[in-house]
Every structure is written in C-alpha cells, then in structure tokens.
C-alpha cells in the first residue's frame, strides 16, 4: 500500500497575533523588527510552502509507505490426541466408522493473510507391540484412515489417506480466517483382514506455509 501527502503550512512567530500588538514610540525599533520578522516569515512561507497551483517547482512531499507482510497466526495447541476408540466389532473385523473421538477443533479463528500451502501427512495406525504379524493372511497390524482438514471457507477437499506416503500438499489461493478442525474417518485395512489385538498409534502432521 502506498500513500502520498503534501503539507502546506505557514508558521507565525510565537506570541500574540500582530493584530493584538500594542506599539509604543519606544518600541518603534522593536515594532520594525517584529514587522520585518513577520514579513520575512511570510515571504519565507510563500517561497518554501507555496501552493502547487501557484508554484513553479514541485512541492516538497513526504511519502508514507507501508507494507503488510504475509503471515499466518500460530497454532498453539499442545499434545493434541484423539482417541478413536475400539477398532473392531464382535467378529474381530474392522468397524466401518470410528467409535471414539474422531474430530478436533485446532483453532477457532486461524488466519493467513495471503495464499498458503497446506500439507497434510497421515501416518497409519500401527500396533504398538506387534511389529510382525505371523499369520499375515488373516491378520494385520496396520489400520489406515482418512484425515480431513476443514478451514474457514476453503471449499476444496483437504483430505489425505494414510496410505499416501509423505502426505499431500494443497494450494489455498487466498487469505482465510476461520475455524480449523481435523477429522479422522474411513477406517480401512487391506484385504478385510482382522487387526491383531493391542493399542494402535498414528499421527497427522499439519503444516501451513505461505505460498510466497
């Protein structure tokens, strides 16, 4: 943003205005000095601060320039953890939707004042203990899911499956401000295998960077 201002100003010597001066004979010399000073000041003002319409030279100007840098507010949440609950039904098969807490608001008013790139990486849910499944024709130690980000008025689908290595980056073409939330959904296992028993841990990493 760029703005220009011109200031024209005449300054009168301090003290009472000339019309209020009381002149006495003894003060004639002083009066002369005052008048000379006033005249000089007016002449100086006329030459130095003349109006553009009557000036032959460019008026002095002061350019006030300001730049708004692109930035985003910060996500200040600590230790965000979602407990998705039990992954299996009575038959030991994967549930069709998570039973537990699958949505979390990350910020009520997150904003970026410029276009941004949003990268979402989703690590699958892996069994905390069983690193190798002996009967891998029947069981698995990995459960995949879809992580979906919603932010303000972004209309695109900001979803990433945990089957995608290194995640996906999305372009947000304009500034946004509003609620940001993450949702975990669509549990999935390869080949409809049964997940082995135990605790499962995964993570979603969200990075929002200015596009420029």
């Amino acid at each position, binding site marked *: 943003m760029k703005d220009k201002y011109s*200031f024209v100003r005449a300054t009168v010597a301090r003290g009472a205005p000339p019309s209020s001066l009381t002149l006495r004979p003894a003060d004639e010399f002083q009066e002369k000095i005052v008048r000379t000073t006033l005249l000089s000041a007016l002449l100086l003002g006329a030459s130095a601060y003349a109006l553009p319409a009557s000036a032959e030279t460019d008026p002095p100007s*002061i350019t*006030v320039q*300001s*730049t*708004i*840098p*692109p*930035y*985003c*507010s*910060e*996500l200040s*949440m600590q*230790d*965000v*953890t*979602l*407990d*998705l*609950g*039990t*992954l*299996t039904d*009575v*038959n*030991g098969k994967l549930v069709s939707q998570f039973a*537990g807490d699958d949505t*979390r608001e*990350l910020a009520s008013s997150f904003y970026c004042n410029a276009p941004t790139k949003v990268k979402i990486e989703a690590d699958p*849910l892996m*069994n905390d203990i*069983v690193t190798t*499944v*002996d*009967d891998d*024709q*029947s*069981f698995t130690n990995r*459960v995949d*899911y879809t*992580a979906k980000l919603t932010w303000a008025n972004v209309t695109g689908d900001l979803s990433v499956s945990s089957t995608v290595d290194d995640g996906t980056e999305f372009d947000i073409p304009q500034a946004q401000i509003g609620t940001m939330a993450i949702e*975990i959904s669509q549990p999935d296992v390869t080949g409809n295998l*049964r*997940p*082995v*028993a*135990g*605790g*499962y*841990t*995964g*993570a*979603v*990493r*969200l*990075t*929002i*960077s*200015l596009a420029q």
Partner: protein
Amino acid sequence: MLHRRTLLMAGLATLAAPGNAHANSVSQQIDIGATVAGACGMGNPDDEIIELGDLTDPDGTLKGDLTSASASGSTIIPDAWCNTPHKLTMEATPMTLQAPPAYAQPSYMARKVTYWARLKNWSPMGAISLRPHGGSDQSENEFNSALAAQSGGLTLEISQLETLNQSNNEVSNLMLEVGDYKGTVTITLATNP
C-alpha cells in the same frame, strides 16, 4: 512532522518484527490412538453331529473301515480366529452306549469306543489330536500370536475307532452292545494374555 514520521517507522517495525502471533509457517501434530480388544471367535460347525452310522460288522465287532487311519467322519468349523495370544483346548469323551443294560458289562463286550479326534488347519505345526478314554481327556495348546483357520477351515476329523473294556483300556475285537453310542468333542478358543 518528525514526530509523526517516527511513529510511522515504529509502526512498520512492529508489523515486520517476528512475534508469537505471526509466522510464515505453522505446524501441528495430532496424535491418534485406538485399541483392539483381544478376542476369539468361531462359527457353528457345518455338521453339529458327525454321524458314523452302524458301528459293527456282522460279527458284532467294529467295522474294519472304522478302525483304519482314514477319517470316518468330519465337520468344518467356519470362521475360527483369535486376534491375540490364545489357548485352544480340545476335550473329548469316548462314544458311549446311551442306554446301557442293567446287567454288568461282560468282559468280552464293549460299551465305549474311543477314536482319534484330529483338529486340522489351526496350528502351523500340524493337527491337534486327542484320543479319549476316560471322562476328562483334553488337549490344551497355547499359541503366542494371533491365528485363524488356514485354508480349508478348521476341520475336525474322527478316525481309527477302537473298543474299550470296563477299565477304559483299548481292546480290539470286543463285541459292541446294541444301542446308540454318542461321544462329544468340545473345542474352546480363549484369549491367553
């Protein structure tokens, strides 16, 4: 004017300076957790009764084909699984005359028949077998990982029948007393934390 310019410059510096509320890149990690409870399951057997038919030859002793090693009867228990370390227990009772006569069992007669109960397609190390003689025969097998029935399904086979005397010892060629004979094989899968 100097004062105003100073203020403007100060304002610009404030906007440009990095602060806690502004960033060029922000990130957040969301940890997710879930659980799978240890459990086992089994479907209903295809045949809940393995019918062996008439046990005897014309001479009243066990049919020769029932005493062979080949299976005389079988059933499949579908969709058996345990998603955690577990214990498979197989209990069996001899086939016993259901309505024994009131008189004492003669030494040359049999009122019980033993057999091999073989459970296939569960253990990677082979079939689990049990040959019952008394009243509390069982085979207990622990497995330290998740298992499900292998291709073909969990299969129970009955083979190699033999008559038992009064002391529940195997004695060949005893004559079977007339009537219905019934034995029971019970298979239990249980988590074994």
